[in-house]
């Protein structure tokens, strides 16, 4: 359950690799959160950052957070899935190296090259900078994303290889037979395996389409006469973006399945509903992305209606299986709460609660009024900040019990209270028609920005405490007692 478990199974290098991931995740998370806070403070007009720099920071925050959420998810997934299938530590480390190279390229594209086309690099904006960034800067960003994508591709393929060697097929590893009642529930794969299988299926497809549109963008940068259909590019980008960011949650949620039971002393029951939820989620994640294009009236109406209906359907597995499962697991279990258990529990709650505003915005009639307002960052920060990242921070605290000490609850409460204020400010501003991605806000919008800034500042302090506690406990502990 602790780092020792990793150590005994794969030797020192696997343990070191996991720790390296967690250290990188913790530090990059903090840096990106500071970027986020700077944006909020600018919108609140409490500090003064010029629009060109604001949009660079926004691009870095978006790409950095999406990437690091993926890395957080990968850490959790790899840590737990290797208890069930053979995986290669070298590949795991390679992914981290690819990530770091990609991150450097992206940071360079922004802070040296001025690239600020947002993390979604919506075609053909990278080639139309208005002289703010060069083609080379944009290319550095595209190559950065490609590096990160290649790393993840390798990681997922390696896990796929391990899963196939044990389960023989992806369907078996996902529990498809159990999902449809064709095989006994008791013979189904453990949650970590089912979740890792789902993540690799969707992410491999997502990364391939993402890579294709990145290459198209690269060509267009240097050969402007190479025209590509903007709507097709948007479909590809949002397929990739939606899949990748959602996969982060589906990887990180393994922390809920694995860590909560340690503290409640109740096994996480996998049954038909559980497997059905994962099979359906695999399909839903792949076909729901048109809900990002609801205001593209040129899209076929059936695709947009599909986007809406599947958005609603996607909520069911989350709410009725994972959230419900977490509640049942904890209900009068006699659990003695600590920060690790609290954070993964909050992670399950944040994911479930974030589903509500997400479904609202996935409804075409509502999207006409909420699309690209701050409602959007409102809903996704709910299930990323209070979901994915809470799960990861729970994992981080769990594997280093020494960090689970006197200061940790302070970090926890700052995080949860600050995070709630922060997302509610976004949602309320969105309902008041405040656009997202605006460097400069109207005076009447400032109250939301200021409340949001205060929440954001609390989050940053909370995460600072949790991450510093982790770093101190890792560096001060002799290797053999790190898991004590």
């Amino acid at each position, binding site marked *: 359950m602790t780092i020792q478990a990793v150590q005994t199974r794969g030797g020192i290098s696997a343990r070191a690799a996991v720790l390296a991931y967690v250290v990188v995740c913790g530090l990059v998370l903090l840096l990106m959160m500071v970027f986020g806070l700077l944006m909020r403070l600018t919108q609140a007009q409490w500090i003064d950052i010029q629009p060109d720099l604001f949009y660079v920071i926004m691009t870095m925050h978006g790409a950095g957070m999406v990437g690091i959420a993926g890395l957080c998810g990968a850490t959790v997934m790899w840590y737990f899935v290797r208890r069930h299938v053979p995986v290669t530590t070298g590949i795991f480390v390679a992914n981290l190296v690819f990530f770091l190279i990609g991150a450097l390229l992206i940071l360079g594209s922004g802070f040296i090259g001025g690239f600020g086309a947002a993390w979604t690099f919506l075609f053909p904006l990278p080639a139309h900078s208005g002289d703010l960034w060069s083609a080379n800067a944009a290319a550095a960003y595209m190559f950065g994303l490609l590096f990160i994508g290649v790393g993840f591709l390798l990681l997922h393929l390696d896990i796929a290889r391990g899963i196939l060697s044990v389960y023989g097929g992806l369907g078996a590893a996902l529990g498809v037979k159990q999902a449809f009642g064709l095989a006994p529930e008791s013979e189904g794969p453990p949650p970590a395996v089912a979740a890792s299988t789902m993540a690799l299926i969707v992410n491999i497809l997502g990364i391939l389409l993402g890579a294709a549109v990145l290459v198209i963008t690269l060509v267009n940068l240097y050969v402007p006469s190479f025209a590509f259909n*903007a709507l097709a590019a948007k479909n590809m980008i949002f397929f990739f973006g939606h899949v990748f960011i959602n996969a982060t949650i589906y990887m990180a949620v393994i922390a809920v399945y694995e860590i909560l039971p340690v503290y409640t002393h109740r096994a996480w029951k996998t049954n038909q509903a559980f497997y059905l939820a994962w099979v359906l989620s695999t399909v839903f994640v792949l076909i729901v992305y048109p809900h990002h*294009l609801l205001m593209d*009236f040129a899209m076929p109406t059936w695709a947009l209606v599909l986007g809406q209906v599947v958005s609603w359907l996607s909520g069911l597995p989350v709410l009725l299986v994972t959230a419900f499962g977490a509640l049942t697991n904890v209900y009068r279990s006699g659990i003695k709460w600590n920060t690790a258990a609290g954070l993964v529990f909050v992670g399950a709650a944040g994911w479930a609660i974030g589903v509500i505003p997400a479904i609202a915005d996935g409804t075409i009639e509502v999207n*006409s009024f909420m699309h690209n307002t701050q409602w959007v960052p409102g809903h996704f920060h709910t299930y990323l900040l209070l979901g994915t990242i809470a799960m990861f921070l729970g994992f981080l605290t769990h594997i280093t019990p020494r960090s689970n000490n006197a200061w940790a609850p302070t970090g926890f409460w700052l995080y949860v209270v600050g995070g709630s204020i922060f997302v509610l400010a976004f949602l309320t501003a969105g309902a008041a028609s405040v656009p997202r*991605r605006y460097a400069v806000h109207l005076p009447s919008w400032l109250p939301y920005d200021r409340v949001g800034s205060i929440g954001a500042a609390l989050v940053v302090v909370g995460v600072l405490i949790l991450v510093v506690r982790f770093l101190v406990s890792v560096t001060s502990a002799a290797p053999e007692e790190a898991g004590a």
Partner: protein
Amino acid sequence: MIQEVVWSISIVLMGILAALFIWVAVGADAALVNYGPVIASAYRLRTWLFGLAVIILIAANYDTIGKLPYVSSLPAMPAGAAIQPVEVVAEQWDWSIKPNAFHVGQTAEFRVTSKDVNHGFALYDPEMHIVAQVQAMPGYTNVLRYTFNEPGVFHVLCLEYCGVAHHQMNTEIKVTAQ
């Protein structure tokens, strides 16, 4: 205003979910019970919740899919009703809107396109609330219909990130009483 309704419903549902998690968390170490019976009654409850969710899902989707903003899905205009075509062209970082003055009761049909990158055509009423929007995409003309129902200065804001002056890309539409 639909935004207020959606905000209220969302906050209430989010609050109920949060309360549920808090209630379970707070009561968790109070009185220990066996897991078996908890699971059994939880599964019964879940079956009911599933049924409820399906009903809500069908009702909500049935209701909202009847009100799509896409022109092909709109009810036919009453005979003799005039639709004012409006050419909208977006270009970093300006709007060209012709014509850009209307009167109350008039239905405008905005034909929205872009010369360079993606922009977002969002119509704000005089109180600065979004009343309609559509994407402005190069190579496409998206058609958005809106009937003005109050006089005053409407604003058009860009709602798709389009580069460094994205937040300055706005213009006005004047609507006079009939």
